């Protein structure tokens, strides 16, 4: 089970956070992010990608991270996931981003809040790995984005109360 997915930049600014089964206050989440960043930035370049996260997330949790350009991608998970498979999953996520944004960079992640979440939700569902095939993910994401655009084109039409009535 995956507990959390975090993307933060090398200055420790979070760019994407998703906690699957830890319901906690926003401040607590921010505190965890800071803690994790503290660990990450203390690690040298060519060391392993795994960290035991017991101290931060409770017993038997581990953390795998990958450093791309200015971003850290961090997955937190428990013993039902394979560390190397998680490393691959980060790769899947980043590759998908790369395909969706054509040479993804930090700014894409910053400005495409909704889309990033759509992509992530197609890969990880409620903490479980749902889809690891880049092409499949892209297909669904494209469909969803299309649907989203088409439902958002008639911006100026007054839709004030119609929704409420139709409920």
């Amino acid at each position, binding site marked *: 089970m995956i507990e959390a997915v975090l993307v933060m930049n090398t200055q420790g*600014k*979070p*760019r*994407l*956070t998703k906690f*699957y*089964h830890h*319901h906690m*206050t*926003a401040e607590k*989440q*921010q505190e965890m992010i800071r803690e994790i960043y503290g660990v990450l930035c203390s*690690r*040298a370049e*060519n*060391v*392993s*990608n*795994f*960290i*035991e996260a017991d101290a931060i997330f409770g017993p038997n949790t581990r953390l795998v991270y990958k450093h791309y350009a200015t971003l850290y991608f961090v997955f937190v998970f428990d013993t*039902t996931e*394979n*560390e*190397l*498979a998680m*490393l*691959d999953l980060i790769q899947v996520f980043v590759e998908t981003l790369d395909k969706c944004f054509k040479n993804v960079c930090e700014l894409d992640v*910053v*400005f495409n*809040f*909704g889309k990033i*979440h759509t992509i992530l*939700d197609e890969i990880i*569902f*409620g*903490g*479980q*790995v*749902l*889809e*690891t095939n880049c092409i*499949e993910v892209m297909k*669904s994401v494209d469909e*969803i984005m299309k*649907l*989203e*655009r088409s*439902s*958002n084109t008639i*911006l*100026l039409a*007054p*839709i*004030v*109360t*119609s*929704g409420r009535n*139709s*409920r």
Partner: protein
Amino acid sequence: MVPAIVDSLLQRSLEDLIKGLRIQMIGETQYLNKAMEDIRKEIKSTDHQMKAIALQKLTYLNMLHGFDMNWASFHVVEVMSMPRFFHKKIGYLAACQSFSEQTEVLLLITNQLKKDLGGTNEYEVGLALNCLSVIATCDLARDLTPDIFTLLGSSKIYVKKKAISVVLRIFKKYPDAVRVAFKRLVENLERSDVQTSSAVIGVFCELTMDDPVSYLPLAPEFYRLLVDSKNNWVLIKVLKIFAVLAPLEPRLAKRIVEQVSDLMRKTMAKSLLLECIRTVVSGLSDYKSAVQLSAEKIRDFLVEDDPNLKYLGLQVLSTLMPNHLWAVLENKELIVKSLDDEDPSIRLVALNLVMGMVSEENLVEFSQVLVHYALKSEPEFSNKILGSVLSTCSRNLYQLVSDFDWYVALLGDISRNPHCRHGQEIERQLIDIALRVEDARAELVRVSRDLLINPALLGNQFLHRVLSAAAWICGEFSEFLKDPFEIMEALIQPRTVLLPPLSRAVYIQSALKVLVFCFHGYMNKKENMLCDLHSGSRGSQRIVGEDLSLQVGNGGLEVSETDGKSCSAAEGSESVGGEILADFDEIEALRDDGLIFKKESLLHLVNLIKMAIGPLLESDDVELLERARNLLGLVDLLEDSPGFLAVNEGEENANSVPESSEIIELMHGVFLEELTPVSVHAQERVQAPDGLTLPQNLSELAAIIGEDPLSPSGVSIGPPQSGEWDNISFLNKQKQEPEPSGEGKSLLEEHRKRHGLFYLSPSKGETESNLDYPSANVVEAPNDTPNAPSDLVRLTEKTFVSKKPTRAKPRPVVVKIDDGDEVVTQTEKQMKGSKEDLLAGVIRDVLLSGKGDPSSSSSHRKEKNIMDMHTPEENSEAIEKNRHGSPSSKRTKHKSHGKGRHKSSGKNEDNEKHKNGHHQNTKHRSWRRAESPRKVDPQAQVIPDFLL
């Protein structure tokens, strides 16, 4: 209408917000607060677009900047129920992000979710499922189970895989859903498309980890996947399942071992290989060839340059260690080299492995090298090393340690490591060894002395606990002190103000003991000298002991006489004084401890004490104050008493025993008794005296306290402090006699006589003679510290070659108490959450009853599988086993578990019934359904043994 449009045109989108954030001039906090203000206004708008955008911005700020959004939960519900996909999606994301079990508005979204789950657009269904997978509560899960059940049969893969995944959350929140959906879930296990099987095996993997036994009947399905699947993700999950199932069922292990080994040989994927190794290590460790193969593969990991593989390889190795130490030893060089790795995670695992290799034969070398290595490691790792050395050496009452002089010296070395943060543990071990190992006391005193006389160490707050232990040891075993005056000075030196009050109190108490020892030695010596003079044989000596009191009686008279002589002689004629001094020297040369107690030094000591301890009489700390009073009280008493050092003057009445010597004798007697370890159960064995009736609870006491407003917060009830206090009071428990009165001593002796059985007889420790015990090894750090890892490698080679224990000297006696020293008492496994227990019970019910149902299509398949998997011989054999074997007993156990769970679930439901009445009917139905399977005759309800 028009203002709304204008507003929405003027509203800042999320993109505007982010852009603004990047170029803001007014400071981030201010900018964000302003944005929040806008959001609070906009979110109340009746315009869908504006509301949704405001919510999107809020979600963003919550997620990345930690702003609270619980206040907006009703708006989240509003946006979720908007008709447009664009808005809906924003609403669902916000719900995933902010809703928890406590969110009240959750009750409002059931119908919306129902509607979206039943929608025609698969992506809308996907949104609802995704949301449910994160926020589903018991109520939601119960109400939506039928909808999820429908979706499990969906023809759209996109929907189906999400429906499968969401089942996990549904089951966990609402175990009774198993009765509805389990069969369909299992059917999906038999599908061949990767997306479905990947999702479903993921669910089963999670479920199996929580309660493996319940899923044993599904093993044939899992086995089929293991054989047929080509997808690594699926295989990894299957292997995870088998890793927990195989230990439960030996025949299953036998079945899969070849398959797993095969995978291990063929696969190119490291992740899969790693999982195979893990499965072998945890589930198939009885199969030698498989273990051998995984050991080879682990070695491949270790020699790789990739730090990830190295780390994981070492980690797997440490799980292999308990049963297959040889696999660790085979790789010892690689492991030891990893101690020097630049990756802290790798170093840590390597350290654990190294400590696992330690045995009685190589403990000394390993510990020595590790402690030196810790000196040059970075602080955190250094402490880890020291911590593991300490815990390894003290394991099972120092089982591995045969040379305590060495170990005690090592403890001293560890304390001196500037990074050392294990003061408390070292303190514990020092005192523990002092009490348990009589032979180590001389060395303990030496090590303690070295620690105490170094004033620099007082500056390290992490050492304070160690220092207080050292002080206690020097006081308690002062007979081993080479130079008591030097210790005395160390104990009352001005820098002790750096110590916390409790440690300082120990220092002062120890000073009291040392002072008594000094005076006693002084008087004793005079007697000795006297005896010598009288008997003519100068070599004869008597040290402390029981016969001393006799001497006092006999020699008292002569003491003053001779002393007067010697003193006046010292002042007057040089020759006589010289003679006497020569006598002294000779006597001392013959004595082991070689103490020089001169009158001048004692006087100096007394003055020093008065000067250093005097100010403490105004201390705020009670403990400190008390100890200081004890010490100064004794000094005053001695000074006031007619016999105090005045014997030297030669003017005293020679016919009476000097009072001071009597006092010292008394005090010395008090401190003479040896302390032994006390059984932790000692208190239990104290029988309550007749006629003592103890009230059942303390309610009366509470009443008393309540009535008395003056007593401040019940100070009088218990010990005012705990923790450190306990420690201190333990240290001084038997020794401390505030007033040097004869009554006190007799009381103490009486107490000891009465409760003698709770102390170990000292005879145990005394059986070992001190004489043939070599003196302590002096542990000096070599100046040229060699490269530790390479050193260790050499050591491992050396020490693993000769397995024969070649002990130079016998291990000293370590005092053990029969019952009190059980180091680790296995605590019962923690009970899982009631929900999980419920779930397990229901799953078993479903699996047990479902298989008996002839209409179930899957059960047919399973039986076929069962046949496929086994040869006829195995079949009959297994049947035999099954008839007499454990499965039936297992089954009955399950049954009773199930019952217990159902009871509790019934209770839950009762509670809930009061809360929301409209759920009553469905609940009752499910409750009845839950009950029905249990009516089946337990004998007929066999766990379908697929292995037959």
